[in-house]
């Protein structure tokens, strides 16, 4: 199949899968079979693109002209390739996990759940492969809308409230800030294509560039830059597989992916470095990192703590790319992958604990590691990655970020990275400590259902593997710089 | 004064227009509102017809004997407009009949009150 064919397949396979899941809704085993087959097929399609992208070319697919001069088009560049690989690969694992979780907890509306999940992946692929801002915006909004039914899955008052915050913040920021930013870019630059080196260079003043950058950075609400982060804790009312794949990987990574793409391909790091337009951004990102870590430290609900950890980790990516140093941009790209595998492991573990022991608060977790050793072991590896210690993937990306910050002599960033590492340790270490070293309380129970354990061990393994074999992500991240 | 006298048809037009509109707004009786509407529309007939008349002119007959004649087009137009006006009036009255059947009244305030009362029970 030609590269363009792979792109089309990557978009159509999950969409067709959604239709198949809906049709197979009456037979749960068949339905889950369709989900797994779709996930595997999607991963194969994305893998099919990898050699081409690693070979240095950019496969393209042009569908139609949506507006005069603006196409609905796709182009696979290295960062999008990395994002698509991570999202589609983790979807397979997450589907296995979902089967265990949804059945183990007797969740309602399972067909709707799997349909929306497949659609969310279709939207994610659209974001990852988008060739211009309009295509990105289209799939960005689609992702918000198809994940809303997943956030409000339980249909109770809490879900309704969470859904309102989720939709309000994400749709609000994208319509009020992102859409005007896109239109202004179109007016100023006359194009919306992602172009190495940016499209705004020399087109407008430094002040206007700064204002536009602010519209973009806060408009991409999915990147959860404070004060636009409230939707992420609100989304935690969703079933855990949703929090794991979407609100630790697909949706939030779509946000930071958009941020990186906009800074690298719309503004251009060179353009921004030559002006003072982005000087404020590292400060805002740094503030988000520290503030979210402090909130996480005080949160007793496990999923809430993980959500604020995600807010903080996302801003690492924003911070790294905002420093504009070549090494830190590589770090940003790597962190997209590293955080994904680590955080999904943590959420998998949280969901496994909920399914097996019905515990949701950190203070209830005494001795949980003795009853669920695999789960808490995986959790510990995920936590290592979040803190940024070897031998976990987080160490690699953090290393690059820190090197970039030092290279650029950006001392605020260095201080933020160092300080937040301590904070990360402060809110993850007690959980592991409680789980393994305190005496268990309450009725006895074992591990969660087998599919869940398999899934979380697999992602924990991936977290370690990315530390030892970071070649592919590194090659892609490096190619991003090469243009 | 000259302008007033030579343009008196316009003043009548404006008077009818204002009177018709006033009746439509000020009267609560649905039939009287329709009367106002008719008066309002009549003002337009005058607006079109009056300028078409030439003093001393005849009907537009194609003949050497008649050099000065009135413009026939406004008459034709207003004939159409009158038909439209009658259709509107007839439809309006028909609706008023139906309203009286449904509400037992043709006073606007009573009808609104009846709806408000029924609205509470819904």
């Amino acid at each position, binding site marked *: 199949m030609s590269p363009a064919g792979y792109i089309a397949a990557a978009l159509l396979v999950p969409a067709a899968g959604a239709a198949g899941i809906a049709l197979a809704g009456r037979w749960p085993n068949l339905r889950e079979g369709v989900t797994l087959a779709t996930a595997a097929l999607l991963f194969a399609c994305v893998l099919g693109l990898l050699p081409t992208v690693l070979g240095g070319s950019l496969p393209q697919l042009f569908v139609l002209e949506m507006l005069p001069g603006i196409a609905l088009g796709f182009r696979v560049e290295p960062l999008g390739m990395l994002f698509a690989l991570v999202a589609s690969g983790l979807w397979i694992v997450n589907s296995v996990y979902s089967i265990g979780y949804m059945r183990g907890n007797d969740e309602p509306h399972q067909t709707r759940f799997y349909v929306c999940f497949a659609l969310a992946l279709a939207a994610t692929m659209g974001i990852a492969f988008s060739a211009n801002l309009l295509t990105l915006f289209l799939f960005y909004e689609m992702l918000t809308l198809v994940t809303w039914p997943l956030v409000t899955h339980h249909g109770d008052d809490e879900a309704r409230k969470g859904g309102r915050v989720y939709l309000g913040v994400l749709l609000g920021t994208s319509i009020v800030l992102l859409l*005007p930013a896109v239109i202004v870019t179109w007016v100023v630059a006359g194009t919306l294509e992602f172009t190495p080196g940016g499209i705004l260079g020399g087109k407008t003043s430094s002040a206007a560039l700064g204002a536009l950058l602010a519209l973009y950075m806060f408009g991409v609400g999915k990147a959860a830059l404070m004060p636009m982060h409230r939707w992420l804790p609100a989304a935690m009312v969703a079933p855990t597989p949703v929090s794991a794949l979407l609100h630790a990987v697909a949706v939030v990574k779509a946000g930071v992916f958009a941020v990186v793409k906009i800074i690298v391909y719309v503004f251009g790091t060179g353009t921004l470095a030559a002006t003072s337009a982005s000087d404020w951004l590292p400060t805002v990102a740094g503030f988000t990192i520290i503030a979210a870590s402090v909130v996480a430290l005080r949160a007793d609900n496990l999923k809430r703590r993980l959500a604020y950890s995600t807010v903080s980790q996302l801003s690492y990516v924003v911070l790294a790319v905002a420093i504009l140093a070549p090494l830190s941009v590589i770090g940003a790209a790597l962190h997209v992958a590293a955080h994904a595998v680590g955080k999904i492991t943590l959420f998998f573990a949280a969901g496994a604990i909920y399914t097996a022991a019905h515990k949701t608060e950190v203070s209830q977790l005494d001795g949980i590691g003795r009853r669920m050793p695999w789960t808490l072991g995986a959790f510990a590896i995920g936590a290592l990655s979040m803190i940024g210690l070897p031998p976990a993937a987080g160490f690699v990306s953090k290393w690059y970020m820190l090197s970039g910050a030092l290279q650029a002599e950006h001392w605020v960033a260095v201080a933020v990275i160092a300080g937040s590492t301590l904070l990360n340790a402060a809110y993850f270490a007690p959980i592991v400590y409680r789980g393994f070293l305190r005496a268990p309380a309450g009725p006895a129970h074992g591990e969660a259902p087998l599919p869940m354990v398999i899934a979380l061990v697999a992602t924990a393994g991936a977290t370690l593997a990315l530390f030892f074999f970071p070649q592919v992500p590194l090659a892609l991240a490096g190619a991003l710089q090469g243009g | 004064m000259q302008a007033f006298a030579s343009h008196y048809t316009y003043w009548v037009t404006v008077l009818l227009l204002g009177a018709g509109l006033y009746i439509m707004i000020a009267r609560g009786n649905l039939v009287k509102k329709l009367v106002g509407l008719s008066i309002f529309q009549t003002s337009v007939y005058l607006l079109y017809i009056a300028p078409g008349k030439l003093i001393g002119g005849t009907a537009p007959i194609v003949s050497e004997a008649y050099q000065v004649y009135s413009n026939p087009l406004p008459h034709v137009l207003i004939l159409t407009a009158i038909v439209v006006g009658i259709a509107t009036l007839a439809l309006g009255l028909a609706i008023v009949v139906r309203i009286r059947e449904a509400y037992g009244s043709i006073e606007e305030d009573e009808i609104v009150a009846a709806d408000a009362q029924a609205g509470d029970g819904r």
Partner: protein
Amino acid sequence: MIAAHLPALAVVVPLAAAPLIVLVRHAGAAWALAVAAAWFSFGASLALAAQVADAGVVSYAMGNWPPPWGIEYRVDALSAFVVVLVSAIGAAVAPYALKSVAAEVPGELRYLYYAMHCLCLAGLLGMAMTGDAFNLFVFMEVASLAMYVLIALGRDRRALLASYQYLLLGTIGATFYVIGVGVLYLQTGTLNIADMAARLPAVAGGRPAPAALAFITAGMSLKLALFPLHLWLPNAYAYAPSAATAFLAATATKVSVYVLLRFHFSVFGESAVTALLPMPEILIALSIAAIVTASLVAVWQADFKRLLAYSSVAQIGYITLGIGLATRDGLTAAVVHLFNHGITKGALFLLAGGIVLRAGGARFENLRGLGRSMPLTALGITLAGLSLIGVPGTAGFISKWYLVLGAIEAGMWWLAALVVLTSLIAVVYVWRFVEAAYLSEPGEAAPRPGEAPMPMLVVSWLMVAACLWFGFDTSFTVGGASRAAQLLLGGAP
């Protein structure tokens, strides 16, 4: 042979169908006739649009009397665009009406519904195609009278009062229009719109021209329900039979917008209008008031059809806002939104009609749990609602794109901000429906599980599909609208 007479045939066929239906009197046969006439008009309109795309302007001398003495039918890029919208909606609603009207209109009156549908269609098409200002008035009244009847056929007694109020206000609007035309006629001595445009500059100096402009603008503003002249609209839309609401909401106000555009830009010309009256400022101020107040009022409605009606007032505000900008992009936004909002609101009212049929009403207690009892209807309303908000991938987004673009290019940043901010109010009222349908347990007033009858569902979903289709493929909508905008601003067609 037929190709040369398309402008006349598109109007005459539904016009002739109406008395035929009254003679037939049988509801089923009446329906069949109405469907045939509506689809004929649609086909003729499409063929006509193709001719216009080739030739630029199609001129047809009615009865072979050459213009400017005879009545000319003059179809250019703008009228072709409006004609396609109107006839498409007419063709879609006619097949839908069978089951909906059977459920909402008493048996002995049903044939009248179809007669009025044909009359209304003929009137609206005539308004959009005629090149004669007085003929336009006649068609306006034909369409309006048919509309009053359609609304009065609603089964709620409040439909009668709504129809009566619309009759009064609509007649005032039409009479204002005809006063304006009369003054222009006295000034220029012609009723042919193109001829009038040519002669007007010579006499535009005095007081009559601004008076005529003011009368026509006020009259058409009433007809198109520009805030604060919109008071007739919510009740009329809420209590009319569902099929009639869908037809009227998608077409009637849009054709009035067309007339306003025609007089402001083709007859007077943009610069002349601005010199006579501060039209852009008035339009922008009223549009903003319409968008903000009507959207907010919509949020609090207890009845879904009324909610949609108030949303229409707000959406008309977006159209007139584009007209007020009076730039190429602003006018493109106005014309494209005319179409996009037409199909979006058409789809929404059609689906709401299905709910009325199944649940006996469309109040919010009827909508609870709709996601389970009528899943396809609920999904359709959600998708069309996204188009109302202006989410990318739907027709509404295209309108919003051009509107914001127009505002930014005119340097009116605050206006661009206002347009996107008010979209959020639309999110609120659309999500009221979504939460009721998907996150509420069905109550006593909710319908028993089961969709609306198949023909209604199919037509509604075709319209929903159009909302999505025109969000991606915009060559027809944006192409047509930008040609129309260019034409209005005096460029080559």
